[in-house]
């Protein structure tokens, strides 16, 4: 093929922007992680791996990591099951099904700040929808301090995350269901398969690529969560909802420990790189074509 030099002009502006405002900051973040910079002073010293050592030994960082894993497990489990269930129920392209799909998807387009404020109100201990409904139903004992209780807050926010994104993952599953050829179902029915058997033998194996996408996306998404937690609890009470991203934010803009925050960012990046590599491997194994 004849390669016109004009093509370089197509690449130039975007690549310049990308190198200056994305690649350079990433590399300079790696550099800061080896310094004691506070983010404000003109000078800083190189401190070697001290920030990494300090971060890995920090109780709050460990707590944030454990919270992040818990948050991920709960969100992945419930979001996957819920979105799969909804997709199975809504796979037909009837009018009402298309309408319900749009309704279930809708929270995805709201900002996390809106979603966070809506649910802060729903969870409000005294005038919130949830506790008032429980009281009306005579279940006062279940009326709890949903985001104020250290043992409960992380799970309350996980529920909101699922509320906001299950509809999006449902669409991925529906696309997967629609890609299964109808003949396979007919053949299975002619062979006398029951509903459960057809699901086990036909639907589930052929849905595996979609399930991989949903699992991978939800895992990475729940590690990157920030806005919702920032809006609803800002890591509290007593670090009960602190996750890695809020930890980094608080280190940098609450304690002005840029070097330490940068080390936290790098550890976070390593974790996400591993997860992303696993995602790509899983997707390739399933031969999903983009």
């Amino acid at each position, binding site marked *: 093929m004849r390669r016109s030099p004009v093509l370089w002009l197509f*690449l130039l502006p975007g690549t310049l922007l990308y190198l200056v405002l994305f690649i350079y900051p990433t590399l300079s973040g790696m550099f800061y992680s080896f310094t004691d910079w506070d983010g404000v002073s003109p000078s800083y010293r190189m401190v070697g791996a001290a920030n990494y050592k300090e971060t890995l030994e920090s109780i709050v960082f460990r707590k944030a990591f454990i919270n992040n894993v818990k948050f991920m497990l709960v969100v992945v489990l419930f979001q996957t099951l819920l979105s799969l269930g909804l997709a199975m*129920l809504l796979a037909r392209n009837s009018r009402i099904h298309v309408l319900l799909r749009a309704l279930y998807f809708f929270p995805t387009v709201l*900002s996390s700040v809106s979603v966070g*404020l*809506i649910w802060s109100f729903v969870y409000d201990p005294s005038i919130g929808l949830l506790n008032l409904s429980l009281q009306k139903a005579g279940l006062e004992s279940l009326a709890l301090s949903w985001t104020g209780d250290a043992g409960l807050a992380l799970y309350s926010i996980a529920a909101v995350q699922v509320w906001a994104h299950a509809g999006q993952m449902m669409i991925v599953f529906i696309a997967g269901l629609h890609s299964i050829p109808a003949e396979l179902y007919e053949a299975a029915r002619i062979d006398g398969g029951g509903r459960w058997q057809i699901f086990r033998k036909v639907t589930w194996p052929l849905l595996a690529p979609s399930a991989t996408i949903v699992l991978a996306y939800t895992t990475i998404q729940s590690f990157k969560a*920030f806005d919702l937690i920032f809006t609803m609890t800002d890591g509290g009470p007593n670090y009960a909802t602190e996750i890695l991203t809020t930890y980094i934010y608080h280190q940098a803009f609450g304690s002005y420990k*840029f070097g330490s925050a940068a080390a936290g960012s790098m550890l976070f990046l390593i974790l996400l790189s591993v997860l992303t590599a696993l995602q790509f491997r899983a997707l390739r194994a399933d031969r999903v074509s983009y």
Partner: protein
Amino acid sequence: MLINSLRRTLLLLYAAVIIIPLYIVLVSAFKTPGTFFAKPLSWPSPFTVENFTTMFQSQPMWRYFANSAGVTLGTVLLELLLGSMIAYAIARLGGKLGKGLFLLYLAGLIVPSQVNMLPIYALVHRLGWTDEHGGLILVTAALLLPLTVFLLTGFMGLLSKEILEAASIDGAGEWTLYTRFALPLSAPSLAAAAAFLFVMVWNDLLLPMLLLNGKSKLTLPLAMLQFRGEYVTDYPMLLTGVVVTSLPMALLFIFLQRFFVAGMTAGSLKG
């Protein structure tokens, strides 16, 4: 029969889980603080739009809207332009060079903006772009470029090589090929990418929070966080803010649903 009614019950139940919080927020915006605290779950009576008028009088709401709209439109247009040019060049170059460039952008997909928040804050500070919408637009566009290039390269790669080759033999330059063939042929994918980017940028909290601080520069999510501080116990007012700021997205979603769903889904498949 039993299965069908079970199915219907589950679907309605989940519809309620989605609708009820949204409904309560919507009606609360039309309540006086008196009725709100006395009857938090009831229909607003008296029905009042006072929260809305107070909000628009006491807050520079139009300015916030204009800020969000300007930043979002600016970022999305810049992003689509730069992203489609890169995707076009990658598709045209092909071979090792195209693949190498593609990998350069692919690498960016691994790095989330939360990792880069400090160095970007520091860099923007040093460049003197703090509190500038232009700076925010450039940074946001840079951070979303890997995803956009990834999405658009997938589509541009599908363009028929024969058509482009034939046209180029007929003497069409690259710019003509790009504007007359590549862009129109990938219009549906550009629309899906645009919808996806629009949602991402309009709703973004982190970058505006890092880079903007003057009250006259805030975007809507930031403004809402500020309301939370100001109307700390005034829920009707706070929820009015939620209604007002969510309205544009809700309307766009109703009218451009197909693109939103396609875009957000493509984004999640590749993000």
